């Protein structure tokens, strides 16, 4: 724009980026995520030295990696949270295409690390699990399709997203990764639910999911064994669940003390899938409740903020992201307390794992971007319009 007044001080139009970010961001959620990451580091200090010792690495090797990836994740989170919803949508859709391609190539280029499921790309210094990145991007594209379908003379977005869901779940089941596919199914279902699905249809979808679960139980030994282990009444103390249960019981209310826990020596996945057992054993129920409360605060606060959201895409995408984030935490902890069958699912921000951390950072960054305070056409918004800076069209 041409300077209209000669020699006049240059004044930025509108509010500077950082203060506006700080003012509009959900600071509670941000705080909770940072605390969760801190707890993750604290538990990593306890849970990962046995693994490092098994692999002949320095004791805090995995903690250092956790700090490195965590910093990357936090940077990604802050960066993504500054984006506008439209940008989030574009990045999400493009990201989905890229990640989905890499998921499709997994059977060819991926590795299973001897764990019975091909889920990883080995990059030498680290490995990437593309399905972790798939979840947030899938939520974005689903929300976009559904939001678009609500326009007048709109394309059939819901049908398209349903077919996309089938394809994505199909590829995840092929790996096989039933935990992630359950999560994808759940997030799609919730987005559809919030987008105004007929209740009858939702019931039918639930029925289909149960049926396909039964089919998977019959067809896949990997799946059947875990379900059987869950359904059997008594716990075999030599299974992971058995150790986790014992650890939670040993911990009691205040834990056995920092560094005194035993479960990390016997559980191979103590630093990832069963990190909550380590927390329960060393710090007791207190820390476990704190962790649960942090996840609950993030989920509930985000949902409440989304209730006031006028824009359909923002609301649907935000809801889907909350569901992916919250449900992953619930599944992880639900497995440890035997409410759910055993599944390889990390606890976001707490468990060790580069892919999980960075994907979590992107996910929460998107969520923060979508839950920022925006004028929603309410009376208060209109009255404070001047303070916000009328030049901005949101």
């Amino acid at each position, binding site marked *: 724009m041409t300077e209209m007044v000669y020699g006049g001080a240059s004044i930025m139009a509108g509010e500077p980026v950082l203060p506006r970010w700080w003012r509009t961001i959900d600071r509670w959620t941000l705080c909770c995520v940072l605390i969760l990451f801190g707890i993750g580091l604290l538990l990593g200090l306890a849970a990962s030295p046995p693994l490092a010792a098994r692999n002949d690495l320095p004791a805090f090797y995995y903690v250092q990696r956790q700090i490195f990836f965590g910093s990357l994740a936090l940077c990604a989170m802050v960066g993504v949270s500054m984006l506008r919803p439209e940008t989030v949508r574009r990045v999400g859709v493009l990201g989905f295409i890229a990640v989905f391609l890499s998921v499709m190539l997994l059977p060819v280029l991926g590795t299973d690390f001897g764990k019975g499921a091909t889920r990883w790309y080995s990059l030498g210094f680290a490995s990437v699990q593309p399905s972790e990145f798939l979840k947030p991007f899938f939520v974005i594209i689903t929300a976009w399709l559904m939001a678009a379908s609500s326009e007048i003379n709109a394309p059939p977005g819901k049908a398209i997203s349903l077919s996309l869901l089938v394809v994505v779940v199909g590829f995840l089941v092929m790996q096989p990764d039933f935990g992630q596919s359950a999560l994808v199914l759940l997030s799609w279902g919730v987005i559809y639910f919030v987008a*105004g699905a007929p209740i009858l249809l939702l019931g039918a979808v639930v029925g289909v999911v149960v049926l396909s679960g039964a089919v998977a139980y019959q067809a896949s030994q990997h799946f059947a064994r875990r379900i059987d282990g869950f359904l059997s009444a008594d716990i075999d103390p030599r299974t992971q669940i058995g150790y986790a249960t014992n650890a939670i019981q040993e911990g009691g209310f205040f834990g056995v003390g920092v560094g005194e826990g035993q479960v990390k020596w016997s559980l191979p996945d103590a630093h990832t899938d069963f990190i909550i057992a380590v927390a329960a054993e060393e710090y007791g129920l207190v820390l*476990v409740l704190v962790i649960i409360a942090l996840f609950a605060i993030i989920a*509930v606060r985000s949902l409440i903020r989304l209730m006031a959201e006028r824009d359909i895409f923002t609301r649907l995408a935000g809801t889907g992201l909350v569901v992916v984030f919250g449900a992953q935490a619930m599944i992880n902890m639900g497995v440890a307390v035997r409410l759910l069958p055993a599944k390889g699912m990390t606890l976001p921000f707490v468990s060790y794992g580069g892919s999980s951390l960075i994907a979590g950072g992107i996910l929460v960054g998107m969520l923060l971007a979508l839950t920022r305070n925006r004028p929603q056409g309410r009376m208060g918004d209109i009255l404070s319009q001047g303070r916000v800076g009328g030049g901005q069209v949101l």
Partner: protein
Amino acid sequence: MTRTPLRPLARILSARVKGENPDVIEVENLHQRHETMRDRARQGSEGRLVVLVGCFVVAFGLIGARMGLMAATEPMEPTSAAMGAQILAQRADIVDRNGRVLATNLVTSALYAQPHLMIDKPRAARSLAMIFPDLKEDWLLRQFSEGRKFVWLKRKLSPEQMQQVHDIGDPGLLFGPREMRLYPNGTLAAHVLGGAGFGREGVRSAEVIGTAGVEKYFDAFLRDPAQAGAPLELSIDLTVQAVAQEVLAGGMQMMNARAATAVLMDVASGEVISMISLPDFDPNTRPAPPTSGDPGDSPLFNRAVQGVYELGSIFKIFTMGQAIDIGLVTPKTVVNTQSPMVWGKYKIRDYKNYGRELSIEDVIVKSSNVGTARVALDIGAERQQAFLKELGLFEPTPVELVEARGARPIVPRKWPDLTTMTVSYGHGLSASPLHLAAAYSTMVNGGTKVAPTLLRQKGPVIGTRVISPETSAMVRGMMRQVVVRGTASFAEVVGYPVGGKTGTADKPDPRGGYFKDRVIATFASAFPIDAPRYVLVVTLDEPVNMLLSEPHRTAGWTAVPVAAEITRRVAPLLGLRPQLDLGPDNGLTLARN
């Protein structure tokens, strides 16, 4: 609800009149309609989002509650690993037929060290070396200082040794309770019992497992807790075993034999009353199996069961018994005994020429190879094989010893007429003394098959019929004549009529052929011969009787006197009444009550 049309005609027309673009009106109305739709959708979603919030709160609450519940329960001891590894240390006793203990358990202690708990390692090593001469001080010290956390030092301790180790006073020297197997009778019935050793060893107990003999054969039975400690009852009679072993050991020494074995069997039930193999060993300190030399020379070798030998003329009884049973001959039938008998390029000789012909009974009494061979030719190879097989001479004995399974008789693969003839007088077919005892029992007990057993039986065990009772009686008569006027004249025992048959077999030379001056001398006898109760087989390995002017090796001079002495001393112990014909004027008055 009223809907504004996207292109209201009134506004369009007025806009056209004013020259404005009517499309703007459509866009504006479209925007308005979107706004309303959005607000309606938001209101609808709000309710659904509240439901979602409720779901999240309930789910997280459920997980928290479950965590709290689990944290409040007491942890259980992890049990599964420890329970499976529990060691059952109880092992049942073994007793003889009269309930006398042959094997039992004794509580003892094992000694182990935990070097990281030790205070003065050099002193402990020095003191231990003084208590146990077999432990070397420098070895102990090395064990203690190698950084190990656990060292076994001694498997069994005597109470005195335990007290001495206590007196060292080192907290790193610890005791583990043990049960050890004890054989209070020492070498008696050593080969029958076998021995036991430690299996899995833990600090708190160790498993005692059988290593040989009945201990191994009945290992599962002896360790079965369901038996509630009921002892294993053997058919062995400890007293008879002791007497027979003493006599046999003396006889072996007197006859300069390398080894000796004796089997005493109940003819009705097949129970082995006594089984001796010399040289023997003490099962309490069972020696390790030899790593070099012939395992047959080891004291561990049970000659009565494992030793398969060509037993010689003993077999003539089987040939003649079969010939009588199938009606070929009677004891009075006369056969050609011209020696040597020529068969192709082979010649069959007798010990000395017994003349042109002998009766069947005399063939047995004088032990003529030629006469037996001629009768065997008449029987034929097939019938001979079938009969020997029926007597159990082709298969390992079914006796309850692990060693018995491997002791398969050596049977000729081809069976031409020459083999028929040699086998008829006990050459070319090797069997164990136990085989022989069982076969003789069958021949003399009335003709029913006897299977040897080491377990106490409740009464006679009647097997399948092999020969008729009449044949059995004729066989007994011939056996008696062998003692009365034949090769086994030294077998006569006052009061107990004995019948039997001798056998002297040249030992096969491992380099081929037979030794000239090394024999296996065997005497198989039954007593009392008129109604036999027991069969006794005595076998001496390389005996030489030097008591007379010239050395005698034949069974009549070696095995027979030893067997007679065993019979003389054992028969009263077995409860047999002597049959004394003292005549009317013997100066004794029969006491009756």
